[in-house]
């Protein structure tokens, strides 16, 4: 096919106009200081959060003796945990393993901190039998067999998790002294890592960047040209105003989307290497990062169309955009606490966050169990109904805040697809309204 034969269809000439306006718009953005200030401030804000994350990952979380067995209650030089293991009286200083035959040397208290971590296997069955008594203070204890099977499931020294679909919570029935002193650092790092990804994804990318970048870059996309009169040059050419609107938006996306890709990739790479775990790089997290990127791309598309439309509608469109930004902030916070709220259906941020929640659900299927374990805290959190979650493991609060369940009542794949379709439809709707208004505007 010769060069001349190519470009016979209406599409090819459309795309010549599209690339001309998109390139023009990109170059126009590049020459403006405000573009660099907005993108730079966005990058700085995200970088600060990243620095906090790096700091958290490099800080050892102080180990807590959740079951209190590292203390020596009777002051006989043997900590309670060791006394318990040998069946001596923890409250009687005249009863301790040193009096046994042969005599047992006292063990350091540190041996009884974090001595029985979680070893739960995730399964999506409604009832799971899991847990292992690492330190043997159940298995090898002097407890009667009936006492070793406190949860009466016929297996001594284990844990039963029962998922309650109605409340979306796990009930934890543990035999005594099983997984009762988890490793705070291990749990806390994992929880903080997940909370960081979800928090920065939802509030950093989908809310902060996806609202404020379009607010400053897209509101004037058409309006600035109309105000300065330079729109006269473009509208004097054989091109429909709906096309101008659309192609200007392409130029805006050509600046914003690569920017989001770069910032998101940077965070994915840094957190992949810095994140907890034995592996060299946390590849599985990339699934969540990818969903964050998709959510942010779609959110900047919808907000871009919306704010450009508001700019066309009124000279001071940014004033119309501000209440919308405030509404979206409210919706962002609502989606993190009440993801099933029907108000969220009337927002952009709610649909975008559904995409992230779906990916988190797929990448971290143990999330509910993981947060339940954090709240339970080896049993010490269980009694804390009166004292709130004060005894919960470190990182639990942040993760509980950042993660939310799927609010659409559908599976993760269906939620993702529905959310993406809705966002694209929202963008198309705002484009349609925007170009309709633009067509009816006189350019003086």
């Amino acid at each position, binding site marked *: 096919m*010769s*060069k*001349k034969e*190519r*470009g*016979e*269809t*209406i*599409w*090819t*000439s459309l*795309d*010549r*106009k599209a*690339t*001309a*306006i998109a*390139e*023009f718009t990109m*170059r*126009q953005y590049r*020459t403006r200081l405000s573009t660099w200030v907005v993108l730079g401030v966005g990058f700085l804000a995200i970088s600060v959060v990243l620095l906090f994350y790096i700091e958290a990952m490099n800080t050892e979380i102080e180990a807590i003796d959740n079951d209190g067995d590292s203390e020596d209650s009777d002051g006989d030089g043997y900590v309670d945990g060791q006394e318990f293991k040998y069946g001596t009286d923890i409250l009687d200083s005249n009863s301790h393993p040193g009096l046994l035959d042969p005599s047992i040397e006292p063990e350091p208290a540190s041996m009884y901190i974090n001595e029985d971590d979680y070893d739960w296997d995730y399964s999506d069955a409604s009832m799971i039998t899991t847990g292992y008594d690492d330190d043997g203070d159940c298995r090898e204890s002097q407890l009667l067999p009936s006492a070793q099977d406190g949860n009466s499931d016929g297996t001594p020294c284990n844990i039963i998790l029962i998922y309650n679909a109605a409340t979306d919570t796990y009930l934890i029935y543990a035999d005594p002294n099983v997984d009762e002193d988890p490793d705070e650092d291990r749990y806390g790092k994992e929880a903080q890592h997940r909370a960081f990804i979800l928090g920065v994804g939802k509030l950093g990318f989908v809310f902060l960047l996806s609202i404020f970048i379009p607010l400053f870059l897209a509101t004037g996309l058409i309006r600035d040209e109309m105000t*300065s*009169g*330079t729109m*006269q*040059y*473009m*509208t*004097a*050419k*054989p*091109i*429909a*105003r709906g096309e101008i609107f659309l192609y200007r938006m392409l130029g805006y996306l050509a600046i914003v989307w690569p920017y989001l890709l770069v910032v998101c990739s940077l965070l994915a790479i840094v957190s992949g290497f810095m994140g907890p775990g034995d592996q060299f790089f946390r590849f599985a997290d990339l699934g969540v990062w990818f969903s964050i990127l998709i959510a942010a791309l779609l959110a900047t598309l919808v907000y871009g169309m919306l704010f450009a439309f508001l700019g066309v509608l009124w000279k001071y469109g940014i004033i119309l955009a501000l209440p919308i930004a405030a509404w979206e902030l409210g919706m962002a916070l609502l989606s993190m606490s009440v993801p099933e709220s029907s108000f969220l259906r009337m927002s952009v941020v709610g649909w975008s966050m559904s995409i992230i929640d779906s990916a988190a659900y797929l990448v971290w299927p143990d999330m509910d169990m993981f947060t339940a374990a954090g709240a339970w805290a080896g049993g010490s959190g269980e009694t804390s109904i009166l004292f709130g979650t004060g005894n919960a493991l470190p990182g639990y609060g942040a993760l509980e805040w950042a993660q939310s369940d799927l609010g659409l009542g559908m599976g993760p794949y269906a939620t993702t697809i529905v959310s993406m379709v809705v966002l694209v439809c929202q963008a198309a709707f705002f484009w349609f309204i925007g170009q309709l208004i633009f067509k009816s505007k*006189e*350019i*003086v």
Partner: protein
Amino acid sequence: MIPDLAQEGAAVEKEWAPESQAPVVMFNNVGKTYGRYQAIGGISLALSGGVTGILGLNGAGKSTLFKLLMGKLQPTQGEVRLFGTNPWKNPAPYARVGYVPENENMHDWMTAFEFVSTFARLHGLTRDEAKSEAERVLEFVGLTDVMHKKIGRYSKGMRQRAKIAHALVNDPDLIILDEPLQGCDPLARTTIMNVIRELGRMGRTVLLSSHILSEIERITEQIVILHQGRLLAIGNLHAIREQLDNIPHTIEIECGDAKALARDVLSLEVVHGLQFPSSSKLKIFTHHLGEFHQRLPKIIVDNEHDVMAINNPDDDLQSILKYLTGGVR
């Protein structure tokens, strides 16, 4: 459906076609009001071919007329047709129109070459075509030497020529220039006038507006006079001038020796009165302005008069308007 990513070679013509019988420009009882202010009212006009000057004072409705034609404004009444098509509804006719807006704002961050070639692509031209087209039109307006400089560094005249170049892309049949000479230095003025005259010679329909009669006079004889949003006169400038000759005109000359000049000027039979506001100023009254202006230079040169300035206080649009609207002078 395959996007033309390479954008090389030649593009194919568009499917829109003008109505063969329709005039290039047609206004049928067109009115435009902004709230209670009537910018133009009841204008009917059809033009095809030639260079037409739209004359009018500031606020007479010249720009409004052009913006209606360019689909930037919607008429409050009547219908506007561009090659037989309603420009408010359909931008397709702009493929054959070049428009130079009055607005002075431009994309200062671009070079003239980028400006022209980028907007040329909106005609559906490929990159290659747009570049060669930009080079052609920039040469036509005489900006080849500076076309790779930023527009922000251009003088007023160069900016105006860049705007004209942008309008000439794709070789339009109709070129609309809104106050193309405003604010230009004499050199740029001459260049732009030559460009417009050349376009007329090439058989294009040219519409240009001005509030200065002498400017229009140097470019074309076909004029339309707008006054307070209404069509006051249309036709040949000389025909209108002929009528003007029936009323007395005043010419004021500043010279070294007013009395000596008066003596020589009196020998012209077209002069019917003189006045001496000061020793270096001479006021001459005539019914035949055109003829007087033809003969005045010879008198000045032959008798070596020292003339500083010749003012025609009446030979401006204002006086024509006054005459045409029946104002008494």
